[in-house]
């Protein structure tokens, strides 16, 4: 199934991408996707990276076709 991934801030810089569409196995969890992309792009400080699935920080979900998964570095608003 197809998943859209977005990268922000330092993660866009590290991956060299703002967005990509990936074909992943059905039933993949957000946590699994996180581990895989962290490895692919050798992203440091894994624990500081949050995922949002369809703009929601609750990522204890199984991914579905067409989901938008955002890789978010620490927030710096204000």
């Amino acid at each position, binding site marked *: 199934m197809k998943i859209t991934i977005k990268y922000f801030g330092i993660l866009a810089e590290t991956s060299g991408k703002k967005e990509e569409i990936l074909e992943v196995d059905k039933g993949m969890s957000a946590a699994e996707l996180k581990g895989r992309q962290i490895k692919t792009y050798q992203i440091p400080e894994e624990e500081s990276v949050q995922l949002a699935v369809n703009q929601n920080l609750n990522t204890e979900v199984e991914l579905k076709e067409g989901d938008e998964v955002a890789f978010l*570095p*620490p*927030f710096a*608003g204000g």
Partner: protein
Amino acid sequence: MDKKKPKKVFVQGAIPPEKIAQSIANHQSKTNIGAHSIFLGQIRADEVNGKAVGAIEYSAYEEMAEKVFHEIREAAFSKFDITCAHIYHSLGKVKTGELCLFVFTSSAHRKIAIDACTYFVEEIKAKVPIFGKEIFEDETHQWKVNK
């Protein structure tokens, strides 16, 4: 009514002081207001390894950020008896000394306005996906992390 209006939070570049005066002036017809509380974030020229920050370039996961701003507003209006609340945050480059955040809350009574303003500031810092690139005078950069 003010509560339900859809609000644009992001502005391009720094927030000019005149915008704050204009917002205040817009509230002088609301005679049930007794207190306004305003918070402004300003870019500091922090030094890191002997180099001073010259600007912060803000970016955001905009669709999600607008959704989270809306959720924070809804929560604030249910927690605090405020008459209105306004939030503006910069995107793009904001130089040191310029303003990047403007939070404005109003109420009949001072404690409510002040507490609501503080609530907005803390919630925005903690929950909104906004990212800041600190650009040094020599054009190198590092990524800002909220404390």
